[in-house]
């Protein structure tokens, strides 16, 4: 059996935190879809770990600084770090922002061995990182073993040639990152990669299918798929000329989107999908920029377009040292490594999965047209105010197919209810929640402003509501319902008193009094 390509993996831990520029030594976490995806060492000490829900994390650590994940920014800030490796080898591939890899054969011979290259990588990247995070380097046979070597490195771990199987054998089975498979394996009593690798390949294939066989090959220190000697023919690549030269990311991103769609269509026709893609850009001064991106699964059209956008963003808005000297005149996408497409099975009757599929396609299309933030979907956050219970997040950050969104009081599949929010107003909720509340005045019979005392008493019953668009008599009202939120945080502390006001035009509004001023915060239209 063939030995996988000897690979070096350089890994910068906690890159999402570094990219957002959040203070690294404090308790910081980065969340995506309300789930923690990275936590700083300070936060980890306090029990904040990956996979926790945002609220649980904040409950464990009240002073936790939380940032939203921004993959484009992660990629942009990683580009200068990658550029530091360019004179070691031109074929550095990015697995995801924060992790990159390259094949060792050429560099090891040129620089005189694995250790010399590892030292060189440390030296080059340390300058670019400027102490923002540490760097781990792992060298082993095959990218999977090398990535694990990097994770256990302090700061360099070199697994000698041919030593990958014995290096992997004592690793826990969960490193395969296939929760469904490893769950079964653990229940079968297979806790280590070594014991899984010892199973006969044919039995694994019969019981767990091709995906299980891929995992089995990884566990045995082989490549996930048998290496395919075919080089993708050059006519599978797609390119587009940009005239006049573009130096702004929005113009280039627009071309990138249609290019990604075209590439995906072309590969689809051939029945293959792409696991590694080269993104190439040429500037008006003839500079050629090239970067490889890898994805564990196959790259979808949306994923390709995202990566192209991130990469171009990294080039165009990167540091002065790496920025191209002119506008971009040509972009090309070259599939660098391809596998037969497995495809995705639609529902038997074409039912909901087809409906979701169509919706996901139009979302991708509109994102290309309008930008990633223009298409948003609701997500549950929880809160006392109508604008806090559910918020809109960019559709690019969530998986649209088969998702569930809970509203307050809903129970999820396991019967776990969303946490209660004491002080939230009962349904029906207002049908219109302006993002910027309208200033208002609430006056009593004598025409003076209605106020609320520190003990929550109304100074006098409200009689007239005055807002920019008119003024009306108050027919019915209720309140105040005071809320005193985030009193532990001087910056975010808010005290509000809420009122429901029904006026003589038949409209009901939600008003709130904050720091002596009245606001219309929602409307039952």
């Amino acid at each position, binding site marked *: 059996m063939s030995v996988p390509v000897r690979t070096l993996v350089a890994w910068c831990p906690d890159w999402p935190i570094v990219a957002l520029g959040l203070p690294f030594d404090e308790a910081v976490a980065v969340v995506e879809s309300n789930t923690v995806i990275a936590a700083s060492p300070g936060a980890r000490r306090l029990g904040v770990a990956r996979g926790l829900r945002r609220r649980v994390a904040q409950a464990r650590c009240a002073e936790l600084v939380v940032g939203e994940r921004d993959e484009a920014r992660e990629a942009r800030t990683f580009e200068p770090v990658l550029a530091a490796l360019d004179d070691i080898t031109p074929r550095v591939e990015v697995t995801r922002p924060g992790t990159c890899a390259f094949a060792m054969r050429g560099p090891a011979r040129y620089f005189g061995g694995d250790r010399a290259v590892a030292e060189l990588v440390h030296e080059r990247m340390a300058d670019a990182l400027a102490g923002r995070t540490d760097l781990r380097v792992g060298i082993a046979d095959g990218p999977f073993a090398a990535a694990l070597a990097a994770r256990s490195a302090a700061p360099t771990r070199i697994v000698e040639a041919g030593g990958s199987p014995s290096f992997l054998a004592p690793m826990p089975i969960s490193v395969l990152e296939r929760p469904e498979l490893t769950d079964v394996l653990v229940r079968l009593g297979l806790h280590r990669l070594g014991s899984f690798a010892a199973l006969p390949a044919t039995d694994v294939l019969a019981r767990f299918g091709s995906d299980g066989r891929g995992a089995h090959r990884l566990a045995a220190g082989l490549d996930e798929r048998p290496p395919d000697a075919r080089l993708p023919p050059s006519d599978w690549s797609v390119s587009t000329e940009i005239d006049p030269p573009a130096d702004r990311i929005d113009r280039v991103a627009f071309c990138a989107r249609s290019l990604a769609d075209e590439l995906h269509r072309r590969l689809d026709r051939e029945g293959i999908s792409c696991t590694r893609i080269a993104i190439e850009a040429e500037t008006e001064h003839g500079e050629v920029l090239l970067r490889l991106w890898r994805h564990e699964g196959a790259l979808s059209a949306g994923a390709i377009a995202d990566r192209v956008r991130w990469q171009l963003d990294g080039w165009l808005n990167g540091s002065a040292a790496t920025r191209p000297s002119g506008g971009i005149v040509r972009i090309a996408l070259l599939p660098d490594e391809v596998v037969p497409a497995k495809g995705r099975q639609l529902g038997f009757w074409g*039912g909901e999965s087809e409906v979701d599929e169509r919706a996901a396609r139009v979302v991708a299309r509109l994102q290309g*047209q309008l930008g990633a933030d223009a298409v948003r979907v609701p997500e549950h956050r929880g809160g006392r105010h109508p604008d806090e219970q559910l918020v809109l997040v960019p559709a690019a950050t969530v998986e649209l197919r088969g998702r569930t969104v809970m509203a307050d009081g809903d129970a999820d599949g396991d019967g776990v209810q969303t946490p209660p929010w004491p002080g939230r107003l009962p*349904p*029906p*909720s*207002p*049908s219109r929640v302006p993002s910027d509340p309208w200033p208002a005045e609430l006056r009593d019979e004598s025409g003076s402003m209605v106020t609320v005392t520190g003990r929550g008493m109304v100074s006098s019953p409200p009689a007239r509501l005055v807002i920019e668009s008119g003024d009306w008599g108050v027919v*019915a009202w209720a309140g105040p319902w005071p809320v005193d939120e985030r009193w532990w945080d001087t910056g975010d502390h808010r005290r509000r008193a809420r009122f429901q006001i029904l006026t003589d035009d038949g409209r009901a509004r939600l008003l709130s009094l904050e720091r002596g001023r009245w606001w219309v915060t929602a409307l039952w239209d």
Partner: protein
Amino acid sequence: MAVAEHAELVDDPRARLRLVADRVAPLALARERTLAVLSPLVPLFPEGGLRRGSVVAVDGDGATALALAVAAGPSAAGSWTAVVGDPDIGLAAAAETGVALERLMVIDPSPPGSTSKSAASVVAALVGAVDVVLVGSSVRLRPADVRRLSARQRERGSVLIRIGSVDGPGVDVGMRIVESEWAGLGAGHGVLRARRVRVTAQGRGASARPRAAAFLLPGPQGAPVALAR
């Protein structure tokens, strides 16, 4: 599965029978196929449901709640809903009315720095991909856009719900709330519980004869509730 479910969601036996008939009919034209609506709203539609390819306009006070109520039926039965140009829509109210949040997208047709030509092209992209497109009053559609959209709609079977402009061109059914009365709020006590509304619907074709229905919108839990006659 979407089709199998939505027959059970409709309370009215006649409407349910009609949905079954839809499925077993040898040939169904786009205008004969309907999307389910919530049972309190059934009397407003001559076909007993939203005719595919039609344009519904809602206007006046309470237009947002009414638009959500119209969209809730198809959404609960498995359709996607897209909201264009109305980012202030109350998401909690939408969920309470019966709109499935996991199949809802909110689109800003003219984000800052965009190169897009017009909101009409965004709506055109959505027609055919999602069953219900809710267009906010900030979106201006020119008569030429409307003609192009309705041709596309007839072909793809999507329903357009427009807030504002009942008399605009291309509107098949115009709905408005003619009477409304809130319950539950007193002078300094109580809480908003429900709004009793009377809705009229009139349009062209089968909807030429005016229709009316009275129900609670929103009901005590947010969803529309039919009133006992």
